[in-house]
């Protein structure tokens, strides 16, 4: 009986506690930078697409919601011809971001993606590609890669030594 009265009193005191509710449309939720929300494709510092169309994200995706087709431009630089994410299937697991070797695909702290029609949840490349470097500013895959794809000469990349002259015996 006493414990019941104590319970009632303690519950009553909650009248004067702070409210937990966030009144959402007016008050926004404080999002963490690592929140796994809407997926974007980022660009490198020069404004080129980071995605090299390696299909690793599509392979890693557990619900098969990523579809893309790789292509190559005249310099030999690979890029996705189309890149499609079906957000009505996406479970925001972040495996694609982990799989991406070029930091191209990234998850952002944005969840306000509601649509009236299901078809509108299928995002094409122009919806996904953003004019930003995302979480890795200053990173440019083709400056690191050994391949010359119109970004830098062979041997001129970051941390890259000049190519060995295979015709010479001298070190």
């Amino acid at each position, binding site marked *: 009986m006493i414990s*019941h009265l104590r*319970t*009632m009193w*303690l*519950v*009553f005191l*909650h*009248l004067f*506690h*702070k*409210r*937990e*509710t966030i*009144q959402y449309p007016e008050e926004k939720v404080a999002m963490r930078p690592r929140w796994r929300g809407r997926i974007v494709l980022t660009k490198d510092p020069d404004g080129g697409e980071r995605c090299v169309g390696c299909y690793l994200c599509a392979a890693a995706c557990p619900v098969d919601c990523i579809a893309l087709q790789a292509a190559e431009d005249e310099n030999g630089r690979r890029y996705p011809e189309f890149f499609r994410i079906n957000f009505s299937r996406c479970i925001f697991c972040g495996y694609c971001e982990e799989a991406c070797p070029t930091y191209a695909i990234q998850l952002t702290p944005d969840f306000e993606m509601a649509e009236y029609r299901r078809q509108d949840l299928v995002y094409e490349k122009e919806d996904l590609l953003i004019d930003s470097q995302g979480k890795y500013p200053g990173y440019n895959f083709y400056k690191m890669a050994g391949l010359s794809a119109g970004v830098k000469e062979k041997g001129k990349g970051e941390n890259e030594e000049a190519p060995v002259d295979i015709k010479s015996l001298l070190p």
Partner: protein
Amino acid sequence: MTVMQHIWIVLGVLFVFLNIAAGLIWVERRLLAMWQDRLGPNRAGPLGLMIVLADTLKLFFKEDWIPPFADKWVFIFAPAIVVASVLMSFVIIPFAPGILVADLNVGLLFFLAMSSLGVYSIVLGGWASNNKYSLLGALRGASQMIAYEVFMGLSLMGVVMLSRSFNLAEIVAAQEKVWFVFLQPVGFVIFFIAGLAETHRLPFDIPESESELIAGFHAEYSGMKFGMFFIGEYLGITLISAMTVTLFFGGWLGPAFLPPVVWFFLKTFVFIGLFILLRASLPRPRYDQLLEYGWKLLLPLVLVNLLVTGAIALWMKH
């Protein structure tokens, strides 16, 4: 009192209490939310008050479905019983001197009889639904009635002894000097527990118990038939609160700076708040536990209370 005056009082009581019962949708949700550190419905209209209208409209537009396996006429009739019986009980409550529908000299007995009829709606509704969960709910409703009905009536006999009347207006008048809650504290606590069980409110919502019986006796009900059970429950809260105020807290009596009716409703709302606080704080006992407490603890307690009250009343007389 002329006939017209009488009709106006009846209509006024009906209007006020049906509106209170509807308004309790908002009150209960807001208060529960406050006690759970939430905000509750606050979007529709000022302070979210229009949730009452929205909820009512929603209930009207819901499909009013009668299951093909149900006992049709009993199924339709059951929700009406609870509302009718509770509304009938309001007849004898004096809201202020002169403002009451029927000045019965057996008012208290009439209240006990009418409020007990409410259990028929649970038993019949559960039976007519032809659903095993509903039947279990009905079964529990019946067993709960056996548990509380005995000590409910007896807990009020102390009040009757002190005021020497079954007439509620006279009971209120007898509390001019001191409220009966100070003379009958045990009677008050036991009556309130019984009232809680009577309205099937949360610590004792054993026939409904949504965590184990889904919704118990009204699992098959939808639309406005469900709404009737809903309104009946809120009317029941208001009734028990009003009765507690009348019998133990001096009814309309209070300092003169407010009119008697205002005092009556202020006190009633305190108890409605207590009902909701109990819902927010206490867990539900099993129905055999309620039976056990009812028969082994509360019934002897109420008999001792009656004995002591009688002895003191006799001693004071000499």
